[in-house]
Every structure is written in structure tokens, then in C-alpha cells.
């Protein structure tokens, strides 16, 4: 039960059910599954290849962008809304960031020759451009949802196509050329102490802040209140439309940040990618124990559950099983996790 997990650390120590409730909570359950998977693949893999630090560190690198988006969309779902456009926001923001970064890093002749005399300026401006573009994308989503009062599923289904289309228009359908490799070698695949990839550090810091906000601040409580009962929230004086607008803007800014991380990771704009990113992030969030209908949310659950697809994918490859099976297993886990969660809730309220 995710609520129990949320309140467990604050509960009086004498409360006998708190520990038991925490152990039964979805994030903890998911963590157990993740550890079990790691152990399983580690034992089965030849020479324990799966256990190698380099492998585990690659897994965290591969999961970083999805994890960031999953953490962000936890807020959107917590308020009872949806955002299907985050993948296309990442692509569009990455294209804009890459254009700005490349054009400011040197003259066209210099960058074609692989020289970037103003790289620092380019990187700073590119990062700002990515976050601004993402924020603007989120603002458009939020305004359409809150001012025109169109369902967020429909709005973001529409802007998903619009965003991808704009990215193709802005880049003529090809990845922005001459993105400096040093983005990758200097940051994207660089690791702290040779273990934790820099992009993952960024994701962990942002996630920690968002975790705190959800658990400990009015902003987090109001997000859950709106998702639980919008009428109740408004009667308590919470301005739900403004709050939902802020959530979409925040989601957009995070997609912009994810775009920059993606750009440093691959040193290319990945223009054909991210078509299923939004759904993968939503799946992770729901597996982690957040309600698709709002009111209940757990950042920790989203973080842990976003690891599952990557661990499965990597593990299966190491075992020599075609990675296609990963899709099948993750789909089955999504359905099973929601089913188990529902059953437990029914038992609790009966």
C-alpha cells in the first residue's frame, strides 16, 4: 500500500503495523523484484558477467532518461491527468538544443571540421534552449488542458504528433549534424568514481527534490488532493486549474532536461526515437504503485519500477535470449502489478 509507505516514516514508532505495511508497500515490493532479477541474471550469466560494475553502471545510464520522465509524470498522474507527449517533447527539445549548441559553438566551417572554439557557450546556451523549449511545450499542453478544458489525454495525443512534426520540420527530417563528441566523452558517458554515470547523478538529484516536494510540501499535497477529488480540493480553496497548469509546465521542463541528457549521452538528436517513451514512463509509474486515476503517487516506486525493463533487456541479452522477450515480460508485469495492487486495495477497504 503506497499510502502506508508514504506515511510510515512519520508514524509513531509504537505503531505495530508500520513496518509490516512498509514491507507490503508497492515501492518496496518492486525493489525486491529488482534485486531478485539482478541476482537471477547475475547467477545465470556466464562468469557472473551481469554482476560486473561496468554492466550495472551501464544499466543505470540506460535508465536515466526514462527514470527522469517517470518521476516527472508521477506528478501529472497524481493529479489525475496524463501526458502522452513527453517523448515527442524530448525529441523536439533535443533538436532545438542541438541547433543552438552547434551554431553557437563555432562557425559552420569550424564545426564541420570538428572544431568548437566556443563550446562552453554552446553547451550553456543549448542547455537553456532545451529546458526553455520543453517548458514552452509543457505550457502549451497546460493551457490547452486548463483554459480550453480539453481532456489531457486528447490534448497530449495531439501535441505528441505536433511536437514530432515540428522536430522533423526544424531538422528537415535528419539528425542535426556535427553535434560535438565531447558532450559524450566529457559528460554523457562519464562516471563519478568510475561507477555512477553523470546523467544518473543529475536524475537522482532532481528525483530527490521532487520526492521531497511530493511528500513534504503543500505543493505535493495539493497535487494529490486534486487527483483524489477535484471538488474537495477546490472547496478547500485550492486553485486546481492553476495547479494543473504548473504541473504540465514542470513536466515540460523535465522533458527539456531529459532532452539535454539524451543529447550528451548519444551526441545525436535521436530524431526517430522516443516514440514509446511516454508509454514506457507511464507503465513504470503505474507498476511502481501510482494510481492512473490520481490521488495516490510514489516517486520511489516510479524510480525503482523504471529499472525493470532495462534490467530485463540487459539480462536477456547477456543470457543470449533475444531482447524481444523483454517487451513481452514488461507488458505482463504491468498487467500483473496493477491486478495485484487492485486486489490488495479491495481487501483493505472491505
Amino acid at each position: 500500500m503506497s499510502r502506508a509507505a508514504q506515511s510510515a516514516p512519520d508514524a509513531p514508532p509504537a505503531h505495530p503495523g508500520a513496518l509490516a505495511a512498509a514491507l507490503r508497500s508497492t515501492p518496496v515490493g518492486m525493489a525486491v523484484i529488482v534485486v531478485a532479477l539482478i541476482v537471477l541474471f547475475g547467477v545465470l550469466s556466464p562468469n557472473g558477467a551481469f554482476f560486473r560494475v561496468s554492466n550495472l553502471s551501464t544499466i543505470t545510464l540506460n535508465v536515466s532518461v526514462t527514470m527522469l520522465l517517470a518521476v516527472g509524470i508521477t506528478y501529472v498522474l497524481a493529479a489525475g491527468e496524463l501526458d502522452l507527449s513527453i517523448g515527442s517533447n524530448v525529441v523536439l527539445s533535443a533538436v532545438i538544443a542541438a541547433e543552438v549548441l552547434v551554431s553557437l559553438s563555432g562557425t559552420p566551417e569550424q564545426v564541420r571540421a570538428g572544431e568548437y572554439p566556443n563550446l562552453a557557450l554552446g553547451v550553456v546556451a543549448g542547455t537553456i534552449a532545451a529546458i526553455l523549449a520543453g517548458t514552452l511545450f509543457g505550457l502549451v499542453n497546460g493551457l490547452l488542458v486548463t483554459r480550453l478544458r480539453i481532456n489531457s489525454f486528447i490534448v497530449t495525443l495531439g501535441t505528441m504528433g505536433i511536437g514530432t512534426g515540428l522536430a522533423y520540420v526544424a531538422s528537415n527530417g535528419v539528425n542535426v549534424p556535427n553535434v560535438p563528441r565531447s558532450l559524450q566523452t566529457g559528460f554523457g558517458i562519464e562516471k563519478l568514481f568510475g561507477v555512477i554515470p553523470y546523467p544518473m547523478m543529475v536524475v537522482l538529484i532532481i528525483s530527490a527534490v521532487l520526492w521531497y516536494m511530493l511528500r513534504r510540501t503543500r505543493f505535493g499535497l495539493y497535487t494529490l488532493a486534486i487527483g483524489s477529488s477535484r471538488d474537495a480540493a477546490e472547496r478547500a480553496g485550492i486553485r486546481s486549474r492553476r495547479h494543473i497548469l504548473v504541473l504540465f509546465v514542470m513536466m515540460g521542463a523535465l522533458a527539456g532536461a531529459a532532452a539535454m541528457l539524451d543529447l550528451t549521452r548519444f551526441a545525436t538528436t535521436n530524431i526517430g526515437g522516443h516514440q514509446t517513451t511516454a508509454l514506457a514512463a507511464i507503465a513504470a509509474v503505474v507498476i511502481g504503485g501510482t494510481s492512473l486515476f490520481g490521488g495516490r503517487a510514489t516517486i520511489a516506486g516510479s524510480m525503482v519500477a523504471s529499472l525493470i525493463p532495462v534490467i530485463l533487456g540487459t539480462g536477456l541479452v547477456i543470457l543470449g535470449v533475444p531482447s524481444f522477450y523483454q517487451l513481452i515480460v514488461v507488458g505482463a508485469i504491468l498487467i500483473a502489478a496493477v491486478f495485484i495492487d487492485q486486489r490488495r486495495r479491495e481487501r483493505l477497504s472491505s
Partner: protein
Amino acid sequence: MGQRVRSEQGKPSSPRSDYVIEATDIVKRFGHVQALSGASLQVRPGEVLALVGDNGAGKSTLTKIICGALTPDSGRLAFWGETTTVTSIRHAQELGVETVYQDLALAPDLSVAENMFLGREPLTRGIFAGWPPSLDRKKMRQAARQAIAAAGISTLNSVDRAVRDLSGGQRQAIAVARAVMWATTAILMDEPTAALGTKQTDIVYESIRSAAARGLAVVVISHDIPKMLSLADRIAVMRQGRTVSNLPARDLTLTDVVTLMLGGHARGEAA
């Protein structure tokens, strides 16, 4: 959105009127429907006023205007004799007026303590020069526990429980306890016992009496006229968007009230 201090609201030091709430000639139309056509209502501190009337008489509309959920087309609304245009529910709350809605207005996924403080959470200062401010959950729990104990709700073992997991009676009792906790002027209740069993109904009536004993004005909409005759100090009868009488309950019988509701005159009432 700063935390409000209770003692700052409510009764002014030198009130201009004996009435906490005074609504005069309130008119409200919804399109072609005339919901209120000159309704009036006065209630004193410490008084329980029952608002009765047939369906569509305008009881809910009148209370929604007083609690800031609706704005009247015309008419005068005064708190302690001070004419006031109530602009929002929050504004009414700042005047010390709390409302218990027919459909409760609790967020089912939030805990009892969170619901009792929703919109008015106490905060603690963060470690970086007061930032970030975070919810003072300890204070919320303590105050919620006290309010619930004061309301006589003994069946609830923890204020950390989600409202979703509570019975209908417990939820209603919490909605009432929340209103009692925050009100400094008046409490408006729209059919507070409609969905409750006998025992739970008694708890709600008990808390209405104790709120009035604390000096709050309580306006109760109810169809349970026999009970209102014993519980309320005064009974206001509404018919077709007007208040047709506002008389002390001890002077009235069930027959009087029903007659007034249907369009006649009570014994002894000046026509």
C-alpha cells in the same frame, strides 16, 4: 496562503449587530429559474437555526450564497452587521464561516489529518534560512486527534487512515469535526445526517449543540422536522425562494411547520 490564526477572525471587538449572519432580500436566478426571490435569514451567535422547506424552496441556494460558493444577483449580506460581498469560499472561511456539504468534500485518498487541514496546512521552516517550508504533519495529527476526540468520534483509531477506508458515518463526522475546528463565526450544514444511521446521527446532532454552546451560529438544512423542533432554537421556513417565517422552535409544532412549508400560516403567527 499563509496560515491563518483563528483568533484574528470571527467576532469583531465591537459588532454593529446582534446577528452573526444577516441575509436580506437575496435574489438569485439560474437562467429562467428563479431560485431565490427575496430570501432573508438572521442568526445569532450560539443559536441553532434549522432551515426547512420543500424541495426547490431555495434552502441550498441560500446557504451556498452565504458560504461564498454562489454570488447573489441582488440583496444584502452582512456579518456582524457589516455589509460584505463574499467573493469565494475562501473569503467566507476568512470570515469564520465553515460549510459541511451534502457530498462531504473530502479527498478520499488523503488521510483524515490531511483532509482536516486541506488548504490551511501548518508549515515548519526549512533548514536553509526557513526554506523549503514543509508540512507540519506532527501538528496536523495532534490537532486532528483533538478535534476528533472533541467531536465524540470514538471509532476512529488513527488520523493517518485514508478517508476512503472509513464508513459513511465516520466520514460525515470528520467533515463536521473539520467545520467545528475551523469555524469562528458560523457553520452551515446541508443535510448533514442524510446518509447516516441513528447512532451516527446522534453524534452529529451532539456536535451541532456543542458548536452552538461554544458561541457559533449553526444553520442546518434538514428534512427531519421532528428532530429540528427539539434540536434547533429557531426554525426558518422557506417556500418558493422566500423565507416565509423565522420563529422560535419552542413555539412551533410539527403541524405548524408543515403548514408553513405548504403555504399556510402557523397558529399565532401574524399574517
